[in-house]
C-alpha cells in the first residue's frame, strides 16, 4: 500500500488577523478576522472566528457570524450616494457625490430647524449608536427621535425598569454558572444570541432543569427538559397561577421581600380621594410601614425595623392603609389565578402548573446556594455569605410583543422576587450599568414648550414618566411627538413608537412633517405592520401631486425594500469597513461581572463610494451648525470624523462614549479625560474594554453598599440609595388617578376607561386587544427568528439563504387534518386586515391554537440582489401583511395603535387568523418588482476561496 498523500497541514490561515466586533446581529461578539491577499494583492476576508478573550462570546460564533464573508461581499451592497429621479418605489436613482448628497440634506434640514424643528422625524432601526443619533437629534431640536425599541421589546425594558431597575432583553443574564432551575418565556433567539446559547449549554451539561414556556417547540425550546406549550398571550395567567401556588403553599422569601421590596409599604385606601392607592408617606416623603418592633409607623426606607406585611393600619390622618403584600396576596390568592381557573385559557394543565410551582419553591428554598463571600448591604450591615436561590428566568418577545406584555413582564418579575432570586447567586443577574432606580431618574424630553427653532432639546428624548406630569402633550392633550409617544395613547412609551411614524406622518396625525430621516430600518417591508398601508403612506400624494411626506432621507448599507422609497440615499459601509462605538451610554456589552464596551474599526477598506453613517451624521451636524458639532467659531468640532467624536466627545465631564483607557495616562476607567490614544488601546485589546467587578460586588447590587458606591464613582449610577423593588408601582396608580378625574392633567374621555383598567399598580392579566375586538379568527399567528438569519438582511447572504430561502406556515397536525392539507399544500391565511397565501408544514410541537412562521424570510422582488424568481419572492411570505398598525374599530370609534396601552409596544403577536385551503400555488400578495437599475447584477456562481487554492498537479 502506498503511503497516504502528503497534505499541507500547517498552512497559515491568512496573512494577518484583525480583531473587531461582529454586526451580523445586535449581539456584538468579538471576532478575529483573518485576512489574506487576493490575486490583486488586496486583502480579502479569509475566515472569521470568535475572539476567545471576548466577554460576550468567549470564542464561539453563531451561524450568522460565521457567514460574515458573504455578508461583507454581498452583491446588494449600495455603491454610492443616490438621489431619486423616478417616482418613489421605481428604484430610479442617480448616483451623486457625497458633497452633493450632504448639500441636499443640509438644504432640506436647515430651513425647518429655523422654523419648526419637529418637522424632522429622525428614527433609527437596528443601530447601536443611539447615544450619537439621540444626541444629534437633541442638538437639532426635534422631539421626533427614537430607535426601534418601541416595536421591539420596550415592554420588557419598561416592565423590568419600573419593577426592579433592570430588565431582561440583553440587560441581565441568568446566573448560568449556578442556576439549577431555569425558566425561559417566549424566546426563540434574543439579542444575547451567543451568551444564551453558551448558557443553555452550561445548564444542560450541569443537569440543571430547563423549562420552556412557548407555544412552539423548536430551538432553545426543543432542548428544554420540560416544554409548556402555552397559548399565546396567556403567560400572565400562567405566572399568576404559579404565584398563587407559592402564596397558597407559603413558599416565599419573606426576608428578601422585607429587605429589598416595597411589600411592607402601606397603600392608602381612600376610594375617591386624589391619593387613593398611593403610598402613605411621612413628613419627609418616605413611604410608611408598620413597624412591629416598636408598634408604630416607620419609614419604608429605614433599615432597622421589623415591618409588618399584613393588617389594616389607621394612618395619623385617620384614613386606613394596607401593606402591598396584603394587596398582592388578595389578588393572587383570589379565584382568578387558581391553576384550575387558568387551565383552559392557557392550555396548560393545572397539575403541571402546580408541579412547576412546587419545583420552583423546592429549588429556591431547599437547594439554596451559599457563597462564602462577605459583602455589606446598603445600610452598612455586614454579611459573611451570599445566599442564592438558584432559580432564574429569562423572557423576551413572546411576552413583550403582546398588548398585555408590560403587565405580564411585571408579573414574571414578581415571581422572581417572591422567590428571592433577583441578583443573587443562581438567580437573575444585572449587567452594569443596571440596576437603576425604579423607575430610572430619566425623564422624557420634548414637551411642546421645549421645542424651539434653532434650539437643542433640553435633554434626551426618551425616559420614564413617573406620572401624568411627565407626558409630552400640550394643554389640550395633543401629543408633541409624531409617534404619539408619551401621550395618553402610550404614556410610558420609553422607546417611542417607531411603528406608527410613517402612517401618522401620512395622515398628518397629530401633524405633518417635512423630512423623514431613517437609518437602518427596513420600514417598507418587514419592520412595519400593514406593509401595503405603509407603502401607500410612503407614496401618498396631496392635491398638488406632491408627496405627503415630502422628503425621505435613508441610510442603508444594502439594497433593501426601503431604499427605493427614499429620495436621498446615504450608503453605509459594511460592519467590517467602519468605526462603531458600542457604548455604556446606550447598549453596552457588559456582563454581570464586568463593565464592558467595544468598538468596531475598519479591518478592510471599502471599494465603493460609501461612508460610515455616523461619520456622515457628524459632518451633517457640522454643516447644520448644530451646537454639539461645531466649535464656537463655527468650525467643525470633530474634523477627524467619528473616531474623533468617540475619543473627544464628553457627555458630562470625564464621561464619553467609551469607558476604557481614559485620562492622559490611559489609566482611568469609566471616568477620565479624553485620551487621544484611546482607540489604539481598544484595537490592541481586541476592540473591547472590560472592567471586572470586585467579587464582593457581584450580587445584590440593588442593595450592595460596595457596588453602589463604586458605581457612582464610575459614573454608571446616579443615586447612592438602594434600588427598591416595586411590586406595587405607584406611577401606574398616578395615571389611574388621572383617569379617575384627579389632577390637572386629564386624559381625553375616550381614554379614561382604558387607562384606568390597564394602569393597575399590581400586575394582572387581561386578554390581548385584538382578540377582544375580532371574531371568526380562531387561531393565533406568531413568528420566530431563525437563529441563522437576522431579520431581512440574512437573505442576501449566499450561504445563509441556502439554509432558509422560503418559509412555511407551521400548523398543528390536528389543524392540518381538519383542513385536509399535507406538507407544502397552499393555504390562505387571513386576519381582519387581509390575507396571505402560503404553504403549510405540519408539526406536533406547537400549541393547537397557534400557527407560526420564520420571521422576515419573505422578500419583495427586486430587493437584496436576488433574482425575481428567488424562493424568497415566490414562496416566502410575511405575516406583517396581516398585522394592522391600528386596532380594529373598538368602542368609541377612535383607533388606537395596535400596541400595549402602557408602553406603546407593538403587539405583533396579538394577531388572530383563520386558515383555508387554497386552490393554487404562488404566494400572495405579490407586489410589483422594485426597480434596481443602479445595482450590478449578482453572480450566478460563487467559488469563494478558489483564489487561494494551491495549483493542482
Amino acid at each position: 500500500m502506498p503511503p497516504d498523500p502528503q497534505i499541507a497541514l500547517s498552512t497559515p490561515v491568512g496573512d494577518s488577523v484583525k480583531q473587531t466586533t461582529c454586526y451580523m446581529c445586535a449581539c456584538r461578539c468579538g471576532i478575529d478576522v483573518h485576512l489574506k491577499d487576493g490575486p490583486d494583492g488586496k486583502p480579502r476576508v479569509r475566515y472569521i472566528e470568535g475572539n476567545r478573550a471576548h466577554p460576550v462570546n468567549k470564542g464561539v460564533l453563531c451561524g450568522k457570524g460565521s457567514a460574515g464573508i458573504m455578508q461583507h461581499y454581498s452583491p446588494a451592497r449600495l455603491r454610492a450616494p443616490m438621489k431619486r429621479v423616478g417616482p418613489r418605489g421605481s428604484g430610479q436613482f442617480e448616483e451623486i457625490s457625497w458633497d452633493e448628497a450632504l448639500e441636499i440634506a443640509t438644504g432640506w434640514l436647515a430651513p425647518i430647524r429655523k422654523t419648526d424643528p419637529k418637522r424632522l422625524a429622525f428614527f433609527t432601526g437596528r443601530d447601536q449608536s443611539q447615544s450619537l443619533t439621540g444626541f444629534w437629534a437633541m442638538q437639532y431640536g426635534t422631539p421626533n427621535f427614537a430607535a426601534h425599541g418601541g416595536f421591539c421589546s420596550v415592554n420588557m425594558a419598561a416592565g423590568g425598569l419600573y419593577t426592579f431597575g433592570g430588565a431582561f432583553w440583553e440587560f441581565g443574564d441568568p446566573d448560568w454558572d449556578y442556576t439549577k432551575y431555569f425558566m425561559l418565556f417566549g424566546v426563540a433567539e434574543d439579542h444575547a444570541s451567543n451568551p444564551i446559547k453558551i448558557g443553555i449549554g452550561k445548564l444542560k451539561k450541569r443537569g440543571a432543569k430547563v423549562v420552556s414556556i412557548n407555544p412552539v417547540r423548536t430551538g432553545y425550546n426543543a432542548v428544554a427538559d420540560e416544554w409548556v406549550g402555552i397559548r399565546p398571550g396567556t403567560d400572565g395567567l400562567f405566572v399568576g397561577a404559579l404565584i398563587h401556588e407559592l402564596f397558597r403553599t407559603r413558599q416565599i422569601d419573606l426576608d428578601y421581600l422585607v429587605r429589598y421590596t416595597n411589600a411592607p409599604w402601606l397603600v392608602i385606601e381612600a376610594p375617591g380621594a386624589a391619593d387613593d392607592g398611593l403610598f402613605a408617606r411621612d413628613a419627609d416623603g418616605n413611604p410608611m410601614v408598620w413597624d412591629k418592633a416598636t408598634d408604630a409607623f416607620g419609614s419604608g426606607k429605614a433599615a432597622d425595623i421589623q415591618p409588618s406585611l399584613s393588617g389594616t393600619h389607621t394612618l395619623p390622618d385617620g384614613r386606613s392603609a394596607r401593606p402591598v403584600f396584603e394587596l398582592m396576596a388578595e389578588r393572587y390568592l383570589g379565584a382568578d389565578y387558581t391553576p384550575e381557573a387558568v387551565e383552559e385559557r392557557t392550555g396548560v394543565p393545572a397539575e403541571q402548573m402546580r408541579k412547576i410551582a412546587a419545583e420552583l419553591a423546592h429549588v429556591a428554598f431547599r437547594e439554596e446556594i451559599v457563597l462564602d463571600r462577605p459583602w455589606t448591604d446598603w445600610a452598612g450591615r455586614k454579611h459573611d455569605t451570599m445566599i442564592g436561590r438558584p432559580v432564574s428566568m429569562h423572557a423576551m418577545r413572546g411576552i413583550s410583543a403582546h398588548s398585555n406584555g408590560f403587565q405580564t413582564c411585571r408579573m414574571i418579575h414578581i415571581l422572581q422576587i417572591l422567590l428571592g432570586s433577583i441578583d443573587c447567586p443562581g438567580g437573575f443577574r444585572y449587567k452594569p450599568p443596571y440596576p437603576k432606580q425604579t423607575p430610572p431618574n430619566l425623564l422624557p424630553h420634548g414637551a411642546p414648550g421645549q421645542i424651539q427653532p434653532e434650539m437643542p432639546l433640553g435633554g434626551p428624548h426618551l425616559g420614564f414618566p413617573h406620572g401624568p406630569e411627565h407626558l409630552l402633550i400640550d394643554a389640550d392633550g395633543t401629543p408633541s411627538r409624531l409617534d404619539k409617544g408619551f401621550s395618553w395613547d402610550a404614556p410610558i412609551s420609553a422607546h417611542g413608537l417607531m411603528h406608527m411614524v410613517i402612517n401618522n406622518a401620512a395622515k398628518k396625525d397629530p401633524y405633518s412633517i417635512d423630512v423623514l430621516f431613517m437609518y437602518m430600518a427596513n420600514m417598507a417591508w418587514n419592520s412595519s405592520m400593514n406593509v401595503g398601508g405603509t407603502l401607500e403612506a410612503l407614496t401618498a400624494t396631496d392635491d398638488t401631486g406632491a408627496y405627503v411626506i415630502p422628503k425621505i432621507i435613508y441610510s442603508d448599507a444594502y439594497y433593501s425594500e426601503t431604499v427605493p422609497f427614499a429620495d436621498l440615499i446615504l450608503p453605509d459601509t459594511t460592519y467590517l469597513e467602519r468605526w462603531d462605538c458600542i457604548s455604556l451610554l446606550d447598549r453596552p456589552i457588559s456582563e454581570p461581572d464586568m463593565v464592558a464596551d467595544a468598538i468596531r474599526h475598519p479591518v478592510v477598506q471599502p471599494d465603493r463610494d460609501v461612508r460610515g453613517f455616523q461619520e456622515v451624521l457628524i459632518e451633517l451636524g457640522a454643516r447644520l451648525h448644530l451646537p454639539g458639532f461645531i466649535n464656537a467659531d463655527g468650525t467643525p468640532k470633530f474634523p477627524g470624523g467619528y473616531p474623533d467624536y468617540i475619543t473627544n466627545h464628553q457627555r458630562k465631564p470625564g464621561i464619553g462614549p467609551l469607558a476604557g483607557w481614559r485620562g492622559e495616562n490611559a489609566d482611568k476607567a469609566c471616568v477620565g479625560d479624553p485620551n487621544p490614544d484611546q482607540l489604539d488601546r481598544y484595537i490592541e485589546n481586541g476592540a473591547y474594554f472590560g472592567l471586572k467587578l470586585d467579587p464582593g460586588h457581584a450580587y445584590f447590587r440593588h442593595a450592595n453598599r460596595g457596588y453602589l458606591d463604586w458605581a457612582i464613582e464610575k459614573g454608571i449610577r446616579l443615586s447612592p440609595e438602594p434600588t427598591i423593588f416595586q411590586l406595587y408601582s405607584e406611577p401606574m396608580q398616578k395615571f389611574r388617578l388621572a383617569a379617575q378625574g384627579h389632577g390637572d392633567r386629564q386624559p381625553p374621555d375616550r381614554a379614561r376607561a382604558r387607562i384606568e383598567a390597564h394602569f393597575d399598580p399590581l400586575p394582572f392579566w387581561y386578554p390581548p386587544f385584538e382578540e377582544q375586538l375580532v371574531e371568526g379568527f380562531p387561531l393565533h399567528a406568531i413568528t420566530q427568528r431563525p437563529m441563522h438569519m437576522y431579520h431581512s438582511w440574512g437573505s442576501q447572504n449566499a450561504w445563509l439563504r441556502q439554509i432558509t430561502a422560503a418559509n412555511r406556515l407551521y400548523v398543528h397536525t390536528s389543524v392540518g387534518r381538519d383542513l385536509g392539507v399535507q406538507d407544502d399544500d397552499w393555504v390562505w391565511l387571513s386576519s381582519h386586515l387581509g390575507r396571505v397565501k402560503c404553504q403549510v408544514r405540519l408539526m406536533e410541537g406547537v400549541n393547537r391554537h397557534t400557527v407560526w412562521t420564520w420571521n422576515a424570510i419573505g422578500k419583495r422582488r427586486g430587493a437584496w440582489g436576488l433574482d425575481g424568481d428567488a424562493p424568497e419572492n415566490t414562496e416566502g411570505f410575511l405575516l406583517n401583511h396581516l398585522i394592522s398598525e391600528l386596532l380594529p374599530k373598538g368602542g368609541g370609534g377612535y383607533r388606537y395603535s395596535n400596541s400595549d396601552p402602557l408602553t406603546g409596544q407593538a403587539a405583533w403577536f396579538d394577531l388572530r387568523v383563520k386558515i383555508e385551503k387554497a386552490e393554487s400555488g404562488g404566494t400572495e400578495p405579490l407586489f410589483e418588482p422594485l426597480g434596481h437599475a443602479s445595482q450590478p447584477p449578482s453572480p450566478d456562481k460563487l467559488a469563494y476561496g478558489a483564489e487561494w487554492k494551491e495549483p493542482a498537479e
Partner: protein
Amino acid sequence: MTTLPTRTDKKLGLVIDLDICVGCHACVTSCKEWNTGGYSAPLTDYDPYGADPDGAWLNRVHTYEIANDHFTGTVHFPRSCLHCEDAACVTVCPTGASYKRAEDGIVLVNPDTCIGCKLCSWACPYGAREYDHDQGVMKKCTLCVDRIYNETLPEEDRTPACVRACPTGARAFGDLGDPDSTVSQSVNDRGGFDLMAEMGYKPVNKYLPPRKGTDRAPVTNVAPAPEQTGSPIEKLFAWADRALSR
C-alpha cells in the same frame, strides 16, 4: 489508497450531543467558511442569488420531531462524515482519491486525483459526501485536517472549525480510539450511539441521545406548617407574621 488500513493509530472524530444542540447552524456555516478556503477549496455555490441556491457543504443540520416512550420532542441533528472504520466510500473508489488515513482514521478525498465518478457518494449511507459540479470532484468533511495539526494555530485552536464555533458546546472532538479520552468517556457515560449501526460501517463519530427530563420536587400541596383554620389569605398572613417575628 482505496483499501482500508487494517487499523489506525487513532480514531479521530466528533461526538455530537443531541441533548444540547439547538439547531443554530453555526457549525454549518463555520465549516463552510473554513473549508471553502482550506484543503477542499473552494466549496462552490450555484445560483447563489437565484431560484435554486445550492452548493457543496460538508455539514448540515436537520430537525426532526420524535416521540417514543422516553422522549417526546424536537431534535436538531447535525450530520457530517462519520469517518467510518469500515468505510465503503473508500473501498469503492476506483482511483484511490478516497482514502482513510492510517495514522488517525480521517477519511479524505484527494482533490488532485478524484475523477468525480460519484461512486463514493453512492456508497455512503449517511449522505455525507457532496459533489462539487464546478470543480468536478467530491467534497466531504476533512475533520479540518488543516486545522487540527496546524502549527501556525495556537494549540487550543487546533480543533475543527465547527467545534470551535459551536455556541452551546454540543460538539466535541477527540480520539475515540482512546478509551480514556474525554470524548470516549462522554460516549460511555451518556450512552453514545452509532448511526445506522446495522449498516456495518462502524462510524467513528458518535451521537449522545436527548436526556429525559426529570421532575425536581415532589408536589407539596401545603407547606409543612402547623395546620390552622382560616382562609388561605389568613393562613398566609399568620405564617408571614410568625416567620418574620422569629
